[in-house]
């Protein structure tokens, strides 16, 4: 009874109802903030850390990224005649340490984040899928 005598107006709930109604009627609010993902995408920042990319000409295959990777994600493998890193995305932390430590600035991370795949093997990105050629791109 004490509770009802104190709260019989239900002012708190009514206040809440007003706030939610404001949202329904879009008063002072953006109507929707979500995006319809597969059809529209959010803008990524240039620093986004997604799938790796390796500059074909800059990389010297030194293996510093391999040593510094916290999770043992990177292995240096032979590709054609030179040695390049191979990244196992399934284990990758996307921490960016490999980018930081690369002495030739050959490793970078792209904005590609849709990396789901059907097999574990296809998560291993060999040099054939990671390499890019700076001259060709620019």
């Amino acid at each position, binding site marked *: 009874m004490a509770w009802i005598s104190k709260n019989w107006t239900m002012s708190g*709930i009514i206040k*809440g*109802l007003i706030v939610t*109604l404001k949202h*329904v009627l879009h008063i002072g*609010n953006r109507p*929707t903030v*979500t995006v*319809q993902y597969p059809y529209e995408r959010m803008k990524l920042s240039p620093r986004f850390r997604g799938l790796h990319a390796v500059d074909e000409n800059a990389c010297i295959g030194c293996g510093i990224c391999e040593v510094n990777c916290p999770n043992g994600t990177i292995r240096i493998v032979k590709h054609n005649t030179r040695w390049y890193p191979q990244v196992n995305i399934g284990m990758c932390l996307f921490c960016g340490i490999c980018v930081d430590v690369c002495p030739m600035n050959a490793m970078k991370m792209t904005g590609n984040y849709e990396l789901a795949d059907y097999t574990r093997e296809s998560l291993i990105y060999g040099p054939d899928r990671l390499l890019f050629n700076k001259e060709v791109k620019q």
Partner: protein
Amino acid sequence: MGMIANAYELIIYILEFFGVYGPIKNIFQVLGIEFVLKIIIVLVEVGILFVFVLLTVMFLTWMERKVVAMVQARYGPMVTGPRGLLQPVMDGVKLIGKEDIIPEKADRWIFTLAPFIVFIPALLVFIPIPFGQSLIISDLRVGLLYIIAISAVSPVAILLAGWASNNKYSLMGAMRAVAQDISYTIPLALAAIAIVLFTGSLSTVDIVNAQSGTWFGIIPKWFIFLQPLGFILFLIASIAEMGRIPFDFQESESELVAGFFTEYSGMKFAMFFLAEYAHLFAVSGIVVTLFLGGWSFPILPFVPPMLVPLVSLGVFLVKTYAVIFFAMWLRDTVPRMRIDQLLNLGWKIMVPLALLNLLLAGFLITVWGAF
């Protein structure tokens, strides 16, 4: 039009209007099976009602999601159909396609039976609800009692479901549902009885008719103006009956996982789901019938008589959807209560208030009668 009491007569009237009723009736009379025609017409009207209810229920699930989405600055379903309108169909297809799991330790028969016992009363409750002038399956003389009685079946089914699942969460959800339903049917019925005092009849049609017309030509003679306290009590009690936030203890998903239907899947789950929304629609319709004047509206006398059923149906639906929207809106605003707080509220506050309201109603009628 005034003589047409229910949908059965309306169908006959329409058939007569097109001049086909006589010949059809003759055929059946010649064959000596006139009762078959009656059964057919009843089946048709009931069929139309059920299809209508199921479509409404599907629409309501969509609407619920859209209202929630609007409050929460989201889109809600958008992909299936225009603005996601066909999402309920897809959900139905998905649920039918799902594996129907019966837990090993469950009581198979009761487990299977329970969804039906929930689902059927949820449809039966529509029978005495007047959707519009002469749009009523059957104007029972004890309509209101029938509604309250039928609504009281679902806690039994919920208890069966919760017990048969052999799951602790289900059982607790079922116990809560029963405690809640019992303690809220009483203020609900008491608030409804106050209306009966005014009308002197349990028939829903009589209740609606008593609310047609206006005072001073402006204020419609709805019982909400005579019985504001009763309306609030009835609304709160019916939200509790519907089992929606802030009173959704029977499923309270953050406490009891999914309450009494934790173990249900596939079509059986869908039946609980449909029953829930059918209940929402029915209870909102009852609120409209009792307190918001049903299908009556001050402009109705000026509508050409041929269109009255249609217009009154429209009026009824607009009012019902307003109540439904309120329930959804409330759901998006408030958190869930606690079960003991709810019972406290029910027994210690709402029942005395409902009795007080009854007293007020009696007083009002006496004073009214004196004038």
